[in-house]
């Protein structure tokens, strides 16, 4: 399974756009890129998933370059409630039920 590397922590201010980049140099052809968000004392929550180019939903955008060796999660106009840990995951959705392999994540702190 592809290993991911992302910053351990990031700081931002309310109203700013936040971009979290994840490196996954060994991504395989069948691998998808998925981001989860986790608040303290809660389980992770799915944010977005993509395979290539750009994916956008009501919460975030995911940018994936052509070589797929990295990806960037973009959170528009963050608020204090976006303070959380963000995990980048890479894996084959059909492999072993689609079990998730988490790294250490990026702890995002949004300040007033």
């Amino acid at each position: 399974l592809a290993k991911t590397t992302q910053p351990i922590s990031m700081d931002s201010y309310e109203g700013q756009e936040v971009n979290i980049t994840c490196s996954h140099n060994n991504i395989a052809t069948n691998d998808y890129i998925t981001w989860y968000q986790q608040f303290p004392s809660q389980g992770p929550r799915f944010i977005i998933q993509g395979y290539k180019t750009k994916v956008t939903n009501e919460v975030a955008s995911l940018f994936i370059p052509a070589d797929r060796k990295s990806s960037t999660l973009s959170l528009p106009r963050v608020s204090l409630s976006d303070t959380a840990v963000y995990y980048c995951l890479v894996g084959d959705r059909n492999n072993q039920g689609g079990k998730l392999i988490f790294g250490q994540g990026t702890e995002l702190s949004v300040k007033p």
Partner: protein
Amino acid sequence: GAGVSQSPRYKVAKRGQDVALRCDPISGHVSLFWYQQALGQGPEFLTYFQNEAQLDKSGLPSDRFFAERPEGSVSTLKIQRTQQEDSAVYLCASNLGPLYEQYFGPGTRLTVT
């Protein structure tokens, strides 16, 4: 509708005791996963069920850990003879199948003293 629920939310066990952690997945979800999350770390996969069949238990750290899902709905993770290194949050997740997002419960925080 209701999400994934787990009980108890907190459990304190003395070293050597057995514990049982329960997971109620979302109704109709075929797949169920257990993860272990140590403090400051990301969750780590323990085991996976498709209906009542345990298809992957490669992440269980030792033979003291046992999971079951006898009727394909509720699941129980049992830890025998708990050790201090078992202290962690145990997360349960479920989904409709491999191509679908996983929905996580709030976790059970286990502290072994």
